[in-house]
């Protein structure tokens, strides 16, 4: 059973930046605090993308070992510590997804809508485990068409062309929906910051 907890939406990046600086100096206590602060965020993303607890925990390990090794490379001018860590996590999760897809001969992206549904059903049955999550509030505020393309890109690592094929929609339509969805998210972020 996966434990749930509510976390504040506020990033609190200033504190995390301070912790990263200390981690770069091999401060284990700071690393422990950074882990406590960011591990639920990374683990939630990993579960959503990889769907298996063991895979998600392996990824969590890899991500934080990399954070320990490369904390000196973090540049505050280029984004929050959380964004840096999440970027590492997402890149590694994408590597795993692609590796799994290469190995799994049965995983075939199709432009046949019925085939696509079938494929999604297989994924859904896997996701029926503890990895299946409640729709978050940010996504819930998006129109279904925008939400769908963002999810397929962000969590399932599909490109714009692959999404257009999967949904049998023109590429231009997919791009428009993606941009509209991102703009809404940007607006939400701005309103939170005010």
């Amino acid at each position, binding site marked *: 059973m*996966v434990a*749930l*907890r*509510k*976390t504040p*939406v506020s990033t609190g990046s200033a504190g995390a930046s301070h912790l990263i600086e200390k981690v770069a100096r*091999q401060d*284990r206590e700071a690393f*422990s605090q950074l*882990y406590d602060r960011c*591990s*639920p*965020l990374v*683990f*939630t*993303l990993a*579960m*959503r993308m990889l769907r298996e607890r063991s895979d*998600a*925990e392996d990824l*969590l*390990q890899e991500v*934080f*070992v990399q954070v*320990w090794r490369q904390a*000196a*490379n973090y540049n505050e001018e*280029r*984004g929050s510590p*959380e*964004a*840096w860590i*999440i*970027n*590492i*996590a*997402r*890149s590694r999760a994408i590597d795993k997804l692609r*590796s799994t897809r290469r190995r799994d001969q049965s995983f075939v992206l199709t432009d046949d809508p019925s085939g696509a549904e079938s494929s999604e059903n297989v994924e859904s049955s896997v996701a029926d485990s503890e990895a299946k*999550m*409640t729709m*978050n509030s*940010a996504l819930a505020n998006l129109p279904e068409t925008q939400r769908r393309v*963002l999810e397929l*890109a*962000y*969590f399932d690592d*599909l*490109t*714009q062309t*692959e*999404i257009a094929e999967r949904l049998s929609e023109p590429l231009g339509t997919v*791009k428009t929906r*993606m*941009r509209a969805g*991102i703009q809404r*998210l*940007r607006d*939400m*972020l701005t309103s939170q910051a005010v």
Partner: protein
Amino acid sequence: MATEHESWRAQGEIYALGALDGQELKDFETHLASGCQICEAYLRETREALMLLHRAMPQLEPSPAVKAKIFDRIERENVVPLPVKPRSTGRRWQMLTGTIAAGVIGAVIAGVFYSKRYEPRHTVYTAVVNLLRDPATRDYPLYGTGPTPTARGRFLWNESGEGHIFVSNLPRAPEGKMYAVWTIAQAAAPLYVGTIATDAAGQGGLHINSTRSEKPMETFAVTLEPVGTTAAPTGPMVLVSKGPAA
């Protein structure tokens, strides 16, 4: 300026999402590699916004055992001073050492300066000097290619598996990207040996402590990769060797 950037911003949003592909992806990465600050900033903001996709989800707690495993790993990987390894000897060692030392001494000084941000200065300095003293060390010039044709570098490589790379005129990696360093042995897949960061002047250095291969290394390369990519190169090559210096 803002109007000029409308099309880049449109591509940048989809790039931040990880969904840009084809020629648009190549064009945008080339644009980013040119050092566009407007697009860098926009990408940064967009990535923060995209985090809302999972930040507001009910957060899942990993098992406490995971944290213990991570601390166990970092304890076992604790940084230790580089040992001074016994070196092989050869008839031409004096000539080779002199040639290499004369050719790279300037790069050593610069590389050590930039490397000190990431590694203890004296450790890197000692390691590089030891490399230069060793007749088995070879000097591989690196040439810019792909989006960074004017970049240059040198790769000092020792058959023991130790090496040091210096780069210059290589712009900082775009947001979400890193420069991955690879060694490639005969008929073998590229092996990731580290990540190199560059400063505002485009310079950087990285020491490689131990990368052993049963086959001799043939090629050394640097590619631009999404952060975290270590399994195999996927992005454009930015620097590559063409054989040891004569």
